[in-house]
C-alpha cells in the first residue's frame, strides 16, 4: 500500500515536473522524437530488405536441362550425382510432360502450337530444379551440375541475383549500424538535456536531501520523468510508422518494382515496430535520467 502510494505520487510529480520545466522537457522530447523517426525508418528499411533477400534467396533455382535421349535409369543416376554436391539444399525432378501441361494451361498460343506435336517431337526437356542452402554458392553448384553427363544446359539468374543480394545485405548492415549509433547518441543527448533539467532543480534536490529523502526517494521521480519523456517522444514516431507505412504499402500495392520484391504486410509489423520504438524511447529516457541524477546524489 505504502509503496503504491509512493509510486503513484512519483508519477504525479513526474507529470508536474515535465510540465513545470516545459521548455527543457520539450528539448528532450524533440530529441527522442527525431531519433526515433530515424530509427523507425531504419527498422522498416532493414526488415524489408531482409525480407526481400529471403524471398529472392528462396526463389533462386538452378534449372538443369536433361538430354531427352536419356533413359529413366540414367536420369536417376543424375539425381544421385546432384545430391552429393555440397550446398545443394533441395532438388526436384520436373518431367517434360508436366512442363508441357503447365505451359499449355497458361497460354492459348502454346496450347495450339503444342497440340500438333507428338511426344517424340516435343522439344521441351526434362529438368531438375535445384536449390542451394546459401545463395553465395550458387555459381559453384551450377558449374558442377553442368559437368554431369546428360545435362545439356544449366540456367539460373546469373549475376543479377548475386548483385541484388549483395546490395540488399549492404543496405541492411548500414541501416542496422545507423540504428545502433543513433540510439547511443540519443542516450547521451538525453542524458545531457536531463542534466540541465536536473541542475535547474538542484534546489529541489538539496531540499529533498535536507528533509531526509533517501537516494532512491530522489532518484525515482527523475527516472519516472525520463520514462515519461521517452514515452512522449515516441508518440509522433509511432504515428508516422503506423500511418506512413500503411500508406506506403497500399500505394505500392504491397510490392516494389516487381511482384518478386514484396513489402512486409503492415499488420502486425507496424505494431511490433511501434512497441520497439516505445521501448527504446522509455529505456533511453530512463537511462538518461539515471545517469544525469547520479552526480547529484553525492554530498
Amino acid at each position, binding site marked *: 500500500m505504502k509503496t503504491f502510494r509512493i509510486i503513484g505520487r512519483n508519477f504525479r510529480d513526474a507529470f508536474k515536473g515535465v510540465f513545470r520545466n516545459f521548455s527543457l522537457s520539450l528539448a528532450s522530447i524533440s530529441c527522442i522524437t527525431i531519433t526515433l523517426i530515424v530509427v523507425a525508418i531504419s527498422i522498416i528499411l532493414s526488415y524489408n530488405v531482409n525480407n526481400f533477400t529471403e524471398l529472392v534467396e528462396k526463389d533462386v533455382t538452378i534449372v538443369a536441362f536433361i538430354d531427352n535421349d536419356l533413359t529413366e535409369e540414367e536420369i536417376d543416376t543424375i539425381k544421385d550425382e546432384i545430391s552429393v554436391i555440397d550446398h545443394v539444399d533441395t532438388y526436384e525432378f520436373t518431367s517434360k510432360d508436366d512442363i508441357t501441361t503447365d505451359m499449355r494451361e497458361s497460354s492459348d498460343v502454346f496450347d495450339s502450337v503444342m497440340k500438333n506435336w507428338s511426344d517424340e517431337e516435343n522439344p521441351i526437356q526434362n529438368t531438375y530444379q535445384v536449390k542451394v542452402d546459401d545463395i553465395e554458392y550458387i555459381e559453384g553448384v551450377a558449374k558442377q551440375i553442368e559437368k554431369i553427363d546428360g545435362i545439356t544446359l544449366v540456367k539460373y539468374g546469373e549475376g543479377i541475383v548475386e548483385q541484388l543480394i549483395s546490395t540488399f545485405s549492404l543496405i541492411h548492415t548500414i541501416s542496422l549500424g545507423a540504428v545502433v549509433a543513433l540510439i547511443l547518441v540519443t542516450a547521451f543527448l538525453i542524458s545531457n538535456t536531463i542534466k540541465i533539467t536536473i541542475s535547474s532543480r538542484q534546489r529541489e534536490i538539496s531540499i529533498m536531501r535536507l528533509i*531526509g529523502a533517501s537516494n532512491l526517494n530522489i532518484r525515482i521521480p527523475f527516472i519516472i520523468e525520463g520514462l515519461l519523456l521517452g514515452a512522449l517522444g515516441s508518440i509522433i514516431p509511432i504515428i508516422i510508422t503506423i500511418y506512413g507505412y500503411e500508406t506506403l504499402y497500399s500505394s505500392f500495392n504491397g510490392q516494389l518494382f516487381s511482384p518478386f520484391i514484396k513489402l512486409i504486410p503492415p499488420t502486425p509489423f507496424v505494431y511490433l515496430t511501434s512497441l520497439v520504438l516505445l521501448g527504446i524511447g522509455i529505456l533511453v529516457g530512463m537511462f538518461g535520467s539515471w545517469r544525469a541524477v547520479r552526480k547529484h546524489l553525492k*554530498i
Partner: protein
Amino acid sequence: MDLIRLTNVKKTYNTGVTAIQDLNLSIGKGEFVFIIGSTGCGKSTLIKMLYREEKPTAGQIIVGGIDVGRLRNRKVYKIRRKIGVVFQDFKLLPKSTVYENVAFALEIFGLPKEEIHAKVVKVLELVGLKHKIKSYPAQLSGGEQQRVAIARAIVNGPKLLICDEPTGNLDAKTSMGIMEVLNEINKLGTTIIMVTHDINIVKKMNKRVIVLDSGRVLKDYEEGTYK
C-alpha cells in the same frame, strides 16, 4: 541522557581553514540553546556537522544515539529524518504552494493523504499560517515564508530543530513573532538549537547561550544567566 554530545571535535575544511577545534559540548533533550559569536567563528560549521552536511575531521558527534560523523553518505537520510533544519533564506520550493511545500516532507515517506492533510493543517495552525495554505511563497512576506519553512521542518515531529539565523532577514517585530513560534514548539518537547547575531532576541528569551570564538567554546551561559 543527552540528545547531542560532541567530544574533541575538530573540523578543518579542505581549503586548510580550521573552523572548529577542541570542541566539547552536550545538549539535553528539550533544551533551547542559542549559539552566538562573531562572523566566521564556526557557528554554521558546528550545526552543519550535526545534520551531517559536513563531517568532522576528528572527534565524535552523537545525535540521538547516532554516530553522525561515521554515517555513510547513503545513510545520511537516517539522521535527517530526526532533525528539522531552518535557514535564513527559507529554502522553499517557489513553484509549490504553502501546503505542497510542507506536505512534500511527508509524501516522500508514503503517508496516506488524509494523514498528511491533518498533519499539515495542524502544523500550519501552530505557526499561524492556516489561512495562506494555497498561497505561493512569492505571495508571502519574509516572516510568513519563514513560518512555512519552520512548519516543514517540524511536520515530521523531529526531536531536534536546528535554525541557522532564522530571523536574519526579518525586522525586529517579525523576528519576535518567529521566536514565539519556536518557543511554542520547544514547549511541545522539541529540542531547539538556534544560531543568531541578534543579541536582543537572545537577551529577551533567557535561554542557554553558547558563545563561540575561533572554533572553540568561549562561554556557556546556563538558562537565564546571559545578560
